[in-house]
C-alpha cells in the first residue's frame, strides 16, 4: 500500500477506533470475541479502502463495513451467540466482584441487556448509542428512515425495560 493510503488508514483508525470497538462490544458480549471482531473490522476497512469511491460519507462507509463485517462474523461463528446465562452467572458483580466501580457495573449490565436483543437490533442500537441520526442509520442499514425511527423507538423501549427488570 502506498504511503498516502497507509497514512489515510491510520488516520481513519485513529478517528474511529473507539466507535468501532464499542460496536463490537455491543454486538458480542464476550470481550475476547469482540476483540477478534474489532481486528477483523480494521482489516476489512483496510481491504475496502482500495474500492472506496467517495460516494458515501467516510463515516457512513466505515459503519457500513463495520456492521456488515459483524453480520458475517456472527454468521460464520454461530458459537458466539450468547444464550441467557444462569441467573447466578448473570450478575456476577453482585457478590463476587464488589470492588468494581459503579460505572463499570452499569456498563456490564448494559452490555448484558444489549446481548439479550436480537442480532440486528444489537447492531441498530449500537449505532444509536454512537449518536448516529435516523438518516445515517437508514443509509448504513439500507432501510427507510421512518421504519428505522419506529424500530429504534421499540428497541430503546425494550432495552430500558430490560435494564429495569434486571436491576
Amino acid at each position, binding site marked *: 500500500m502506498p504511503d498516502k493510503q497507509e497514512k489515510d488508514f491510520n488516520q481513519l483508525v485513529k478517528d474511529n477506533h473507539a466507535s468501532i470497538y464499542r460496536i463490537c462490544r455491543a454486538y458480542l458480549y464476550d470481550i475476547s470475541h469482540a476483540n477478534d471482531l474489532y481486528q477483523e473490522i480494521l*482489516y476489512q476497512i483496510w481491504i475496502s479502502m482500495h*474500492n472506496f469511491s467517495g460516494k458515501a460519507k467516510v463515516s457512513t462507509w466505515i459503519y*457500513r463495513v463495520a456492521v*456488515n463485517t459483524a453480520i458475517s462474523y456472527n*454468521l460464520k461463528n454461530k458459537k458466539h451467540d450468547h444464550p441467557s446465562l444462569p441467573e447466578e452467572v448473570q450478575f456476577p458483580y453482585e457478590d463476587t466482584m464488589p470492588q468494581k466501580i459503579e460505572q463499570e457495573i*452499569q456498563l456490564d449490565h448494559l452490555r448484558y441487556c444489549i446481548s439479550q436483543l436480537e442480532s440486528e437490533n444489537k447492531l441498530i442500537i449500537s449505532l444509536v448509542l454512537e*449518536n448516529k441520526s435516523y438518516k445515517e442509520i437508514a443509509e*448504513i442499514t439500507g432501510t427507510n428512515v421512518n421504519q428505522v425511527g419506529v424500530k429504534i423507538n421499540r428497541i430503546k423501549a425494550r432495552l430500558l425495560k430490560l435494564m429495569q427488570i434486571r436491576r
Partner: protein
Amino acid sequence: MEFEDIQKSWQAQRVGVQPNPKLFEVQKNRWARNQQKLLKSNIRMSLGFITAMVAIGWVYFTFHEQYGMPFKVSIACMYMLMLLFSVVSWRSYSFRKVGLDDSSQEYIQQQIKRLSWQKNVLERYTFIYVVLLWMALIMYIWEITETASATFRFTAFGITTIYLFGITLWNKVKKQKNQLEELNLLISGLENIKDSLDKA
C-alpha cells in the same frame, strides 16, 4: 433511567483494545499473498482452458472423418463440460468481490445470492457436469471398443458408470449433505436478518 444517560455512559466507556500491528501485518501479508495466488490461478486456468479447447479442436478436425457420431458427441460433450466449468468458475469469482461498503440490505442480498449460487452448484451443476462427463466417456469407449466383443464393451460401460455415479453418490451422501445443511442455515440466518431489517 433515561436513554440519554445510557448513551452518555456507553460513550464514556474505556476502550480496552488497541489495533494489533503485528496481527494486522500478518493479515495484510496474507491478503497480498491471496491476491497473487488468485491472479496466478486465473491466468493458469485461462491458459489451460485455451490449450484444451485448441487440443480438442485439433483432435476433432484430424480424426472426424475416421470416426462416427459417438466421436462427435464425445467432443461436443467435452466442449460443453469446459463451457460449464468456465461459467461456474467466473460466476463464483464474481462473488469474491464482496461489497462490504454497501448498505446492510444490499450486502445481505448479495450474500444470499452468493450462497444460493453455491447451493445451485452443489445441487444442479455438479450433476450436469457428471452426466456430461459420463456421456463423453461412454461415447469414447463406444468408439474404441468397436472391434471388441459385446461383453467387453458393456463391462467397460458398467465399470465406468458405477465408478462415476458411485463416487458422485458417495460424495452426495458424505459431503454434500453437510455442506447443503450449512448453506441452508446461513441463508435462513441472513433472510431472518433481512426480514427483520425490512420490518418497522
